[in-house]
C-alpha cells in the first residue's frame, strides 16, 4: 500500500478525500475515488498488468482509454465476474476485485512464456501452417490445444444477477464525444433550440484537452469544460450522457450506444440496471470522437513501462499519477511536447525528448529553451529491462550515434490516427492525408459530419471552431431555424509542425504492431513474402487488428508496413472496414430484459386455468402453452396418454383447441377467393356446412390444412393449424392485396376472439345437450356430420361445428374468448354423469394416428397433396395457387414417397418416429432407404404399435410387405408391416355415435 507514484498534487478526476481499497491478484491496494484500475495500479507502482495473447509476454497498460490492448483483466467475482475488461476504463470502487488473465501459475512467473522461445514457429499464419495435418487431429487434438492456450479470461458460471435495459430515443442532433470539438458542437447546436444528445464514453467530459496547460475562452481548460457541461445541462433541449459509448452506426441514421449505468459501483443501486442499451434515431450526427495515438515499432516496445505519450499525460493530469520517475519521451510530432510540459510542471524528471524529426520544430525549440534535452533526428531502437523497462537505446535514423538512456517510463508518440471507426461503419472510405500521416473520412454517405481530431484537426483552436460550425450545420440540416451566427469558443493558436513517418525503427527483434494479438512488424513482412498482398488478406493471415480493440492503436502502422513491403504508397494499400461494435459489448446488454421467461411472450388460452385445475402438464406449441396430458396421481406419462385416448373412444373427452388459427372471411367474392387458395372447391358449399380444405404454396407443395365453414352466403370461417396461423394469414394478405385486388373480400384473424373446445366420444352429444339445454337443438337432423350452427348461449354468440379429428362422434364449440372458462365449466359439469375426461395434445395425436389423419409431422413442407393420399381433392375445374407447379414431372412421379400405415410386428419392443424404412436390415443406408416413419403410438384401439410413414411407391407397391424400421441412433431395426393408414374404423361409422 504505497502509492509510491502518486504525486502530492494534481489529478482533476480524483478526490483525495475519498480513499478506495481494492484488490488485484489477491493483493490489497489503495486508490482514490475517480481513479481507474490502471491509474490506481500505476499509482502503487504496479506496471505489470497482464500477459500477452500468444507469447505470454509481460505487459503493462499502453493507453489510458478504451483502445487499450494490453491491460485486459477479469473484474469482480462470483456471478458478476467479467472477463476481458480494460483496466484503463474500469472505474475504481471500494472492494473492487480484479485478476490478471492468461497466465499460469502467476502473473510474474508465467510458464507459457516459453512460447517466446518457440517464437520462430509462432509467426504469421502459424495456425494454418501447424494445425493442418493430419485432418483427424483437428477436433480431438488441435482444437483442445488451441483453446487451452488462447488466453482469454473466465466467464462467470452463475447467471448474471443484474438487469440490463433497452431504451429508445430520438434527437435532431447527436454529438458523439465530449472533447473540445464535441462540447463546442453540442453548445452551438443546443443554442439553436435543436434537440441535442451528447454522448461521451468517459465518466467526465474534456477528451484530450490539457486541463491546466490549455486555455479556452481565457479560462483554464478544466474550468471551461466544467462550465460548458453546466451550460449544456441547463438547456432543456440538451441531454448529456456520460459513460456512454456509441458503438454502432447503422442504416438510416439509427445508432446504438451502451450506457454503463452501474459499472462504476460495486453493484447497481435499487431498481437500476447494470447497463442500458440505447437505440438512437438521429436526424443529424456530429462525430467528434477524437483520435488514437500510435506506437512506433521498435524492439521490445511492449515492455511494461513503455506507454503512449498522450496516455502518460492523461495519467498525470487526470489522476495525479506519474507512470515513472524518470521519463524518456520519443516522438515524431509536436503533441508529445505537451506531455513533456505536463510532466515538468508536475515535477517529474524528463530525461530526454527523442524527436525523429531532423529539424527543430517551434515546440521542440521552446522545450530546449526551457532546459529540456531534445535529441533531434533520433529514434528508439530497443527497450531494455527484465519485467519492465529500465533503459532505452536510441540512435540516429541512419544508425549512428547509439546511446542508452536510463528510464523507468518510456513515453512514445508515433503520431495520431483520426478515429474513423464509426464513420467507416456507414460505408465511408477513409482517405490518406500525408501531412498528418493519418486516414480521414471521405464525403459522408449518411447525415453526419466529422469534426476535430477525428477529421484530422489536431490544434485546439481548430477543434473548437470546427465543432462549433458542425453543431450549427447539423441543427440547420435537421430543420431547425438556427438564427444569427454565434461566436465559437476560442483558444490561442498553436503552430503544429508536421510529423515525420516512423514506422519500423532500426532493429531485428520483436517489434510489436498489434499488441493484443501479438502481431510483430516481422509478421507483416513475412505475410507479404508469402504472397499476401491485399490488406484484407494480411489482416486475416496475421490477425492484425482482429482482437477486441479492432486495432485502434495498430491498424495504421500495420498498413504502413505493408505499403513499405509492397513498395507502394499507403493510399494504394487502403484500409480494412471497421464494423460494430466499436468496443466490446456484453451479451447481457444485447439481451436486455428478453431473457428467461421474458425471452418471448407466453400465450395462454382462456381455459388455461381449467386445465391447470385438472392437473394438466403443459407443452409449448410455438408461444402457446397447451395441455399435453392430464396424469392422475401415480400415473406415468404414457399411461396417462393411452388412458385418455382409450376413454375418448369409450365415453367422451374434452380438449382445448383454442390455439387453432381462426380467420373470419367476408365479402361477395369470399367463395372465389377460397377457391383460389384451396385445392378443392368452396363456392358450392352450402351455408351451415363445413369442409376440409388443403392449400398449397405456389411451388406446389402443401402449405396447410384445416376445416373451413360457410356461415352465410358472403361469410366463411377458416381454421388453420396452430403452427401455420400467422403464415397463412400473411399468404392471404398477399393474395388479396397483391395478386387479386379486384376481389371484393375482407378478412381478419379471430384466433384470440374465439376460444374453442372439442368434445369427442360416444357420449359427446348427450353431454353437450345437457350443457346447452334449450339453447341448441343437438339432434342429428339439426346438426348432421359437417354441420355448423350458430346459437345464443347465456347472451353470447356461440358456434358449434360437427367435425371429427378422432373419428368419434365429435363437436367443436366456439364462444367469445372471455366466455371460455364458463363454457368449459358448463360442459365439464354436464359430463360428470357421462364419463367425460379431459385429454391433451398427446392423446389427440394418438387418436388421429389411429385414423390416419395427417398433422404437423406429415406436413413437413416437402409433401404434395398426392403424397398425403389427397391427390383426388385437387380440382381440375378451377385454378388455384400451386396448381401449375404441382403438375411438374417430379411432383407426380409414382415413385414419390407417399403416406402409408406401419404396424410393428410381434416380437419387437417399440416403434420410433424418424426411423428409415429399408428392405434389407443388413444394407441400410441413405441410398437403400425407401422412406421414413413420421408419427407413432402404442395404439390402445389397434392393440399394438402403429405409425404413419412415407414410402416410395406407397401402398400400390408395398401393401402387406414387411420392411425394417432402421434407427441407427438407438441401434434398433424392428420389422414392420405396411398397411393402410386408416387403422381404426376404416369405414368411418363411429362419427355417427
Amino acid at each position: 500500500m504505497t502509492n509510491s507514484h502518486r504525486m502530492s498534487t494534481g489529478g482533476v478526476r480524483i478526490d483525495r478525500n475519498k480513499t478506495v481499497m481494492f484488490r488485484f491478484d489477491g493483493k490489497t491496494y489503495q486508490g482514490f475515488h475517480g481513479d481507474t484500475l490502471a491509474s490506481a495500479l500505476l499509482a502503487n507502482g504496479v506496471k505489470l498488468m497482464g500477459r500477452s495473447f500468444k507469447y505470454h509476454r509481460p505487459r503493462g497498460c499502453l493507453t489510458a482509454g478504451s483502445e487499450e490492448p494490453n491491460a485486459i483483466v477479469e473484474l469482480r467475482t462470483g456471478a458478476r465476474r467479467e472477463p476481458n475488461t480494460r483496466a484503463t476504463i474500469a472505474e475504481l470502487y471500494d472492494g473492487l476485485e480484479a485478476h490478471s488473465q492468461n497466465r499460469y501459475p502467476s502473473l510474474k512467473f508465467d510458464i507459457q512464456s516459453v512460447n517466446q522461445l518457440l517464437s520462430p514457429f509462432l509467426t504469421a499464419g502459424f495456425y494454418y501452417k501447424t494445425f493442418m495435418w493430419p485432418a483427424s487431429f483437428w477436433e480431438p487434438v488441435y482444437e483442445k490445444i488451441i483453446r487451452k492456450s488462447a488466453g482469454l479470461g473466465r466467464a462467470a458460471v452463475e447467471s448474471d444477477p443484474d438487469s440490463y435495459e433497452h431504451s429508445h430515443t430520438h434527437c435532431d442532433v447527436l454529438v458523439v464525444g465530449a472533447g473540445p470539438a464535441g462540447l463546442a458542437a453540442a453548445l452551438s447546436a443546443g443554442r439553436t433550440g435543436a434537440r441535442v444528445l451528447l454522448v461521451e464514453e468517459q465518466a467526465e467530459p474534456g477528451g484530450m484537452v490539457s486541463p491546466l496547460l490549455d486555455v479556452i475562452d481565457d479560462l483554464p481548460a478544466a474550468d471551461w469544460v466544467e462550465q460548458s457541461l453546466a451550460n449544456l445541462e441547463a438547456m432543456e433541449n440538451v441531454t448529456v450522457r456520460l459513460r456512454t459509448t456509441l458503438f454502432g452506426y447503422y442504416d438510416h441514421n439509427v445508432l446504438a450506444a451502451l450506457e454503463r449505468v452501474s459499472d462504476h459501483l460495486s453493484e447497481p443501486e435499487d431498481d437500476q440496471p447494470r447497463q442500458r442499451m440505447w437505440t438512437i434515431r438521429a436526424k443529424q450526427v456530429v462525430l467528434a470522437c477524437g483520435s488514437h495515438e500510435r506506437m512506433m515499432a521498435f524492439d521490445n516496445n511492449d515492455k511494461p513501462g513503455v506507454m503512449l505519450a498522450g496516455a502518460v499525460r492523461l495519467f498525470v493530469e487526470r489522476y495525479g499519477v506519474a507512470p515513472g520517475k524518470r521519463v524518456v519521451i520519443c516522438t515524431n510530432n509536436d503533441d508529445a511536447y505537451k506531455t513533456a510540459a505536463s510532466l515538468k510542471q508536475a515535477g517529474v524528471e524528463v530525461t530526454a525528448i527523442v524527436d525523429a524529426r531532423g529539424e527543430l520544430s517551434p515546440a521542440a525549440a521552446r522545450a530546449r529553451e526551457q532546459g529540456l534535452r531534445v535529441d533531434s533526428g533520433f529514434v528508439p531502437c530497443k527497450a531494455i529491462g527484465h519485467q519492465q523497462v529500465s533503459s532505452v537505446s536510441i540512435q540516429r535514423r541512419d544508425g549512428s550515434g547509439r546511446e542508452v538512456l536510463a528510464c523507468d517510463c518510456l513515453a512514445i508518440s508515433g503520431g495520431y490516427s483520426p478515429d474513423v471507426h464509426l464513420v467507416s461503419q456507414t460505408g465511408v472510405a477513409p482517405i490518406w492525408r500525408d501531412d498528418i500521416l493519418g486516414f480521414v473520412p471521405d464525403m459522408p454517405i449518411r447525415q453526419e459530419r466529422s469534426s476535430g481530431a477525428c477529421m484530422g484537426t489536431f490544434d485546439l483552436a481548430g477543434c473548437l471552431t470546427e465543432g462549433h460550425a458542425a453543431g450549427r450545420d447539423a441543427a440547420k440540416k435537421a430543420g431547425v431555424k438556427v438564427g444569427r451566427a454565434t461566436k465559437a469558443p476560442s483558444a490561442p493558436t498553436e503552430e503544429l509542425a508536421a510529423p515525420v513517418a516512423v514506422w519500423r525503427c532500426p532493429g531485428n527483434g520483436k517489434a510489436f504492431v498489434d499488441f493484443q494479438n501479438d502481431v510483430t512488424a516481422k509478421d507483416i513482412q513475412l505475410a507479404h513474402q508469402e504472397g499476401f498482398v491485399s490488406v484484407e488478406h494480411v489482416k486475416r493471415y496475421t490477425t492484425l487488428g482482429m482482437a477486441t480493440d479492432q486495432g485502434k492503436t495498430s491498424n495504421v502502422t500495420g498498413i504502413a508496413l505493408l505499403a513499405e513491403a509492397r513498395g507502394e504508397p499507403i493510399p494504394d494499400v487502403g484500409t480494412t472496414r471497421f464494423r460494430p461494435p466499436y468496443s466490446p459489448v456484453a451479451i447481457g446488454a444485447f439481451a436486455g430484459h428478453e431473457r428467461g421467461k421474458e425471452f418471448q411472450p407466453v400465450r395462454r388460452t382462456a381455459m388455461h386455468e381449467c386445465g391447470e385445475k385438472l392437473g394438466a402438464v403443459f407443452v409449448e406449441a410455438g408461444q402457446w402453452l397447451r395441455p399435453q396430458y392430464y396424469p392422475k396421481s401415480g400415473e406415468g406419462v404414457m399411461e396417462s396418454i393411452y388412458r385418455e385416448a382409450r376413454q375418448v373412444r369409450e365415453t367422451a373427452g374434452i380438449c382445448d383447441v383454442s390455439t387453432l388459427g381462426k380467420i373470419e372471411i367476408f365479402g361477395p367474392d369470399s367463395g372465389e377467393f377460397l377457391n383460389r387458395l384451396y385445392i378443392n372447391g368452396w363456392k358450392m358449399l352450402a351455408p351451415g356446412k363445413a369442409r376440409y380444405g388443403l392449400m398449397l404454396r405456389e411451388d406446389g407443395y402443401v402449405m396447410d390444412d384445416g376445416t373451413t365453414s360457410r356461415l352465410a352466403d358472403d361469410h366463411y370461417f377458416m381454421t388453420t393449424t396452430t403452427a401455420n396461423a400467422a403464415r397463412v394469414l400473411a399468404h392471404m394478405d398477399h393474395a388479396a392485396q397483391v395478386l387479386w385486388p379486384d376481389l371484393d373480400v375482407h378478412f381478419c384473424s379471430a384466433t384470440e376472439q374465439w376460444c374453442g373446445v372439442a368434445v369427442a366420444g360416444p357420449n359427446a352429444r348427450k353431454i353437450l345437450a345437457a350443457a346447452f339445454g334449450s339453447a341448441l337443438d343437438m339432434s342429428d337432423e339439426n346438426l348432421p356430420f359437417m354441420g355448423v350452427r350458430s346459437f345464443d348461449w347465456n347472451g353470447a354468440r356461440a358456434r358449434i361445428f360437427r367435425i371429427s379429428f378422432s373419428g368419434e362422434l365429435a363437436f367443436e364449440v366456439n364462444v367469445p374468448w372471455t366466455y371460455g372458462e364458463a363454457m368449459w365449466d358448463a360442459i365439464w359439469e354436464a359430463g360428470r354423469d357421462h364419463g367425460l375426461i379431459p385429454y391433451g395434445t398427446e392423446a389427440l395425436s394418438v387418436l388421429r394416428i389411429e385414423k390416419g389423419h395427417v398433422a404437423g409431422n406429415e406436413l413437413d413442407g416437402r409433401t404434395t397433396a398426392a403424397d398425403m393420399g389427397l391427390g383426388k381433392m385437387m380440382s381440375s375445374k378451377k385454378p388455384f395457387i400451386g396448381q401449375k407447379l404441382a403438375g411438374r414431372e417430379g411432383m407426380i412421379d409414382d415413385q414419390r414417397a407417399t403416406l402409408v400405415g406401419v404396424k410393428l410386428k410381434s416380437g419387437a419392443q417399440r416403434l420410433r418416429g424418424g426411423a428409415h424404412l429399408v428392405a434389407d436390415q443388413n444394407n441400410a443406408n441413405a441410398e437403400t432407404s425407401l422412406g421414413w416413419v413420421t408419427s407413432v403410438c402404442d395404439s390402445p384401439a389397434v392393440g399394438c404399435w402403429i405409425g404413419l410413414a412415407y414410402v416410395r411407391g406407397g401402398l400400390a407397391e408395398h401393401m402387406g410387405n414387411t420392411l425394417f424400421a432402421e434407427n441407427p441412433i438407438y441401434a434398433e431395426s424392428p420389422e414392420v408391416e405396411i398397411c393402410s393408414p386408416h387403422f381404426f374404423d376404416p369405414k368411418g361409422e363411429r362419427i355417427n355415435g
Partner: protein
Amino acid sequence: MHRIDCPWCGTRDEAEFQYQGDATATRPAPDAAEADFFDYVYSRDNPKGWHIEWWHHVGGCRQWVKVVRNTMTHEIHATGGPQSKLSVPKPSGSRLR
C-alpha cells in the same frame, strides 16, 4: 436498422416489417405455361444497387408495401402500395462507389 415509410402508417422501424422479396415478379395468368410459373417462383435477379421489394407491414397495418431500396447502401428511394408504379432512380442518383 432500416426505417421504412409505410404509406398507411408513416415511418416505422424495420422490426415491424417482414421482408417478402422481389416485387418485380408478376404472377402469370392461370393458363400460362409451367415454365412461366417456374420463373415466377424460382428465377430471381440478385441486383447490386436499386431494387423493388416487398415489405409486409406485419406488425402494423398488415399491408404489403412496395419499397425501392438500394441493396448496397440500404437507401430507400420511395415506398408505395401494392398497385403503385414505382421505378428505380436513374444511375446518377446513386451514391454507389
